[in-house]
Each structure stands twice: as C-alpha cells, then as structure tokens.
C-alpha cells in the first residue's frame, strides 16, 4: 500500500515536471518615452487576451516578460532579445513596434530556436529575414494600396503625395503610386518631408501650387499629424476642395480627441478601427479598455498584440509546450480565425496576416466624441509590398 502511494506520488511528480511548465514570452516594445502610449497598447492587447482566454494553455502557464526599447534602437533591441533568450529562457519573442528593432533581432531566431511574432513593425521585408517570423499587424503597403483605388474612383485624377522621409513613409509613397497609376491616375509630384517638421504651411503651399486635385499623405501617428491636418484646413486647402487621402496611421483613435473637428470627414484606409462593429470587437474593446485604464487611449497596436497572443497560444498548443520553433511556425501557417478587426488568416507563404482593409471616415458620435466610421471593406488583402520588391 505504502509502495503504491509512493509510486503514485512519484508518477504525479514526474507528470508535473513533464507537462506543467511555465512558458515564457518575451515582449519588446516602447514602454517609456515618447512612444509609451503604443507600448501601453501592446500590454493592453496582451492583458485583454489573457483575461479572456486564461493564462494557461493545456497544462502550461504562460508568463509574459516585458523589455523596454523607448525609441527605434536596433542595438538595444538585439541586446535585450538576446538577454531574454539566454537569461530568461523565453520560448517566444514578440512585440516590436519599430521596423529596425524587429530587423535587428531576426538573426537570433534560428540559433535560439525561437519564433518571432511581430505585433506592429510594418515594413514588408521583415518576414523575409527569417523563416521564424510571423506578423499579426499590417504593412504600410497593405494599408496604403486600397486608398489609391478609393482616390481614383472618387474622381481624383491628379494627386500629389506628401510623406515623412523615413522607411514607412517611402513605402507608403511607393504603394500609393503603384496603386494609383495602375488605376489610371497620375502622381504629379512626390514630396518627402523631414520627420522633424513643425510648420507645414510651406508644404501646403507646395500642394496648392502643384495643381493636384487631391493629396496623399503619410505621417507617423503622434504629435505631427495634428499640425499637418490643421495646416491643411487653415491654409484653405480644404475649402479649395482638395481631397485628402491617407492610411489610418494619421487618424489613430488616441489622436482623434486632439484632432477633433479638424479631422472631420477625412478618409483613411486601415486594418482596424476601434469602432468596428462585431461581437468579437465588442469583447476585445471592453477587456482592452479595462486593461489600459483609459479607453480613449486604445489604438491599433493593441489589436496586433491581441492577435499575436492568439498565434502564440496556438503555437504552444501545437508544440505541447516543447521548444520547437519550426513546428510552431508550421502549425500557424494558414491559421484562420475571427479577430476583433474581422476575419484574418496567416498567409502560409509570407507568414504575414491576410485581413480586411477598411475605408473609414472620421465622424462625430452622438456623445460628441470622434471616431473612425467604417464605410467600405476591401476583403482579404495580402501584402502587395513583397510582390513589388521581387
């Protein structure tokens, strides 16, 4: 009897060792500094997913370890990724708000046997850097291509493109040009502005002088978008009937209270609007709003993080908690699910997310707040950027 009890105990112990592991996920993002709000959104998305789905997969407990890279800093990102893998023993690397940060960590993946789940960084090429990269956010090509068609169909034939002079801005310029010329329009001029521009009046004058009937703009979300949109209105371009097209970075939800009336009526294309009408999104917004504290601060990185967690959970399920990056990535290829942003799937070829892109208009809600109102859906958009690069 005693022997039997001992054997049972031993079996239980051994079983415990084999199955009930703690699986660590390292998340790198901007959690302090000027971009802290976006890092906060990562955390809100992750917390929301874990609040709704529990922190265990099978017998394994999932633990998140956060590391802070305040601004784009590839060296720091690589060093922290290495530390997470070597010291903390993480099985998954996730997060990555800026492209250079994600790029810098990709050479580690194969040797470390760790998959990377990119929750934001939006340059097409990242997925080509390692077979272990899966992305659940969007690319600038993906969100900027549909607006070209919208612009052309809306009657604009001559467009001037104005972008911030850095990687995603140049991507946006190229994506729009490709889409717009394919539709039959003409990009009369392409201006690249320095990132540090405060006064946009001279740019507005350039737009006016170019004789274009519409402008395509890309600026990173944050303080400068406010100045740009205001300058657009105050220099009389809006009244002159010049149409404004942009990807949704320009009207992200956390900037809308500040943009306010100036942004009213702006049309943008993007993969996610907090206002998206679906039961999944309602659940997500409630949970993520609670996690972030102030629901008005909720924005697109949260949904990238939420779906990133979904992918990680599926990977843990497929590998049974064992560290096997190849098997984990293989398991999510072609994975399709209903995200808060709508139906999505992981493209088996590119490992990038295929999703709906929505045309939205900034509208005023009954309670006086502003929101992105979805008015048209472009279904199942892949990433045209990878094909363009070939």
């Amino acid at each position, binding site marked *: 009897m005693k022997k039997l009890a001992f054997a049972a105990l031993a079996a239980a112990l051994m079983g415990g060792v084999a199955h009930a592991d703690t699986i660590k996920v390292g998340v790198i993002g901007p959690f302090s500094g000027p971009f802290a709000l976006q890092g906060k959104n990562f955390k809100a998305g992750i917390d929301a997913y874990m609040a709704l789905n529990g922190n265990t997969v099978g017998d394994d407990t999932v633990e998140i370890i956060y590391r802070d890279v305040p601004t784009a800093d590839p060296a720091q990102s690589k060093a922290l990724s290495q530390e997470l893998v070597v010291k903390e023993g993480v099985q998954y690397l996730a997060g990555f708000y800026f492209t250079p940060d994600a790029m810098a960590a990709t050479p580690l993946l194969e040797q470390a046997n760790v998959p990377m789940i990119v929750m934001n960084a939006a340059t097409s090429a990242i997925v080509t850097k390692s077979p272990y990269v899966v992305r659940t956010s969007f690319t600038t090509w993906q969100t900027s291509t549909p607006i070209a068609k919208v612009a052309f169909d809306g009657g604009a034939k001559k467009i001037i493109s104005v972008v911030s002079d850095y990687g995603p801005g140049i991507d946006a310029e190229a994506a729009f040009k490709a889409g717009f010329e394919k539709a039959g329009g003409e990009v009369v001029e392409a201006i*690249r502005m*320095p990132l540090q521009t405060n006064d946009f009046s*001279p740019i507005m004058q*350039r737009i006016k002088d170019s004789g274009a009937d519409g402008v395509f703009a890309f600026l990173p979300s944050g303080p400068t978008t*406010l100045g740009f949109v205001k300058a657009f209105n105050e220099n009389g371009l809006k009244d002159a009937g010049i149409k404004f097209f942009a990807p949704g970075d320009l009207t992200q939800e956390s900037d809308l209270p*500040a943009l306010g009336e100036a942004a009213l009526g702006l049309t943008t294309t993007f993969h996610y609007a907090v206002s998206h009408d679906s039961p999944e999104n309602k659940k997500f917004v409630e949970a993520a709003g609670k996690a972030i504290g*102030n629901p008005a601060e909720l924005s697109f990185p949260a949904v990238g993080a939420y779906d990133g967690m979904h992918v990680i959970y599926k990977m843990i399920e497929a590998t049974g908690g064992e560290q096997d990056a190849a098997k984990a990535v293989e398991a999510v290829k072609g994975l399709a699910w209903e995200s808060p942003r709508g139906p999505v799937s992981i493209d088996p070829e590119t490992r990038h997310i295929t999703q709906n892109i929505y045309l939205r208009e900034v509208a005023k809600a009954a309670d006086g707040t502003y929101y992105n109102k979805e008015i048209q859906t472009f279904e199942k958009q892949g990433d045209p950027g990878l094909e363009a690069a070939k």
Partner: protein
Amino acid sequence: MQTIFSIGVDALAYGMVLFVISIGLSVTMGLMRVVNLAHGAFAMIGGYIASYAARDLGLAYALAVLLAVAGTILIAIPIERFLYRRIYGQPELTQVLMTIGITFCVIGIANYVFGPTLKTIPTPDALREPVSLGFRTVSAHRLFVIGCGAAVALGLWYFIERTAFGVKLRAAVDNAAMAAALGVRTEIVYAVSFAVAVGLAAFGGVVGAELLPIEPYYALRYMVTFLVVVSVGGAGSIPGALAACLLLGAIDTTGRYLMPEFGEFFFYLAVIAIVWLFPRGLAGRAK
C-alpha cells in the same frame, strides 16, 4: 512673385512663434546667466494649464492664457526659491545638470497627470477662420501670433531699457556685488526676472501650441530649437533674438518649400554660418 509673398507670410508667422517661445530663454540665459534647459518644460506647463482651463473647464481663450501665465509663474516661484537660487553664478555644467533634471521630472509628472496623448487648446472661432490676404489665405491664428510676437518684443524692450526696474536688472547683471552695495535687492530683481521669463515661456507655449502641440515630450523635443535661437540671436538681446527668429524662420520656410527633401539642412547650415561669423550671436555683447 505671389509665391515669394506667400513664403514671406509663412516665414514671418513661424519666426514670430519661435520668438515668443524663445525670448524667455534669452532673458534667463543672457541677463541672469542661467542655462535654463527647463525652459521648454515651463512652456509646456503653460500649455497644459491653458488646455485644462479652456477644454475641460470651458473657460474663454483669453482667460485661459492669463491663467496659464499666472499658474506657471505660481508653480515656478517655489522652484526658483529652492532650486534655481542655488545655481545662480555656478558653472554652466552644474546649471545644465540641474535644469535637465527638472525637465525630466516635469515630463514624468505631466505624463502621469495628463497622460501621453496630445492636448489641444481650443481657440475661439474668430482665430480659427482662414483669412484671405488677397494673394493667399492664412489662418487668423497666425496673424494673432505675429501680433503677439510684436507686442512681446516691444513690451520687453520697454521694460528692460526704459523702466527703473530695467536699470536695476542690467546693473545686477553687469556687477551683482556692486549693485547690491548700492542698495539694489538683487535677489528680488532675479526673482522678478525669472518670473517674467517663465511667464513668457508659458505665454509662448500657449500661443505656439498650434505649431508645437502640447504633449509630455514637448519639453525636450523643441529644446534644441530654442537654444539655437538664443545662441544665434545673442543671449539677452531682444533685437538679436527677433532678428534671429525672423532670419531662421525665413531660411527654414524657404528651404522647406523649395527643397523639403533636404530637411533641416539649410536651417543648420545657416546656424553654423552665423555662429562662425558672430561667435556671440547676432547682437551678443563681449564679456
């Protein structure tokens, strides 16, 4: 021709915004000899107060501006009494370390209290409308800022050059010990000038908020621009600062219009050239 006029208007407006925000720093650095890197932080505090008053409490714009200036000075008084008074006359490095520390504290507090999102200061309808100048439209707010800049320049010039207090201030700056021996209460002179400088920072933060929007990193983001204006103009000189702002505004605006891809190249090229030709700034005095 129309293009030249149009760039001219933008340059004037941008230069005046720079002037209103930077002139307070010129006063602290030139007249009080304090390298006050927390200048942007005070401008930001002014912006936050105005935003809170106008947006959350629904007060009128003019009242919000007044509250912002008064509130920022009120906050600055204990800071001057307990922190700045220790660094008057200290080496520059000590001053830089102390004021940059204050800046980081203010950023942290602003981030905690107001959150990381942008704060706007709602302007009255009259300032929001585009005004037609015949050859182009410009926002009424820009014209308002140009007016503010001119008023500040004139008022400050009168205050320093023509009032009894201005005489005491200049005396205290040139030789504090001698001024004190002659019965000038130098600490009061310094406290008042500091309050004026901080008040100007707050005022600039509020009226310039349309171009430089208020968010926690405001305090650091535009610091270089403010310092450049002061060093190009010559610390402590009002005409110098005005000339620097208009010149740099013109160069920056023209560069941005003609060759935006070059970014701030022309701006900094001009700065290098001016500082090379005039090491003490356009109107700097020899020590």
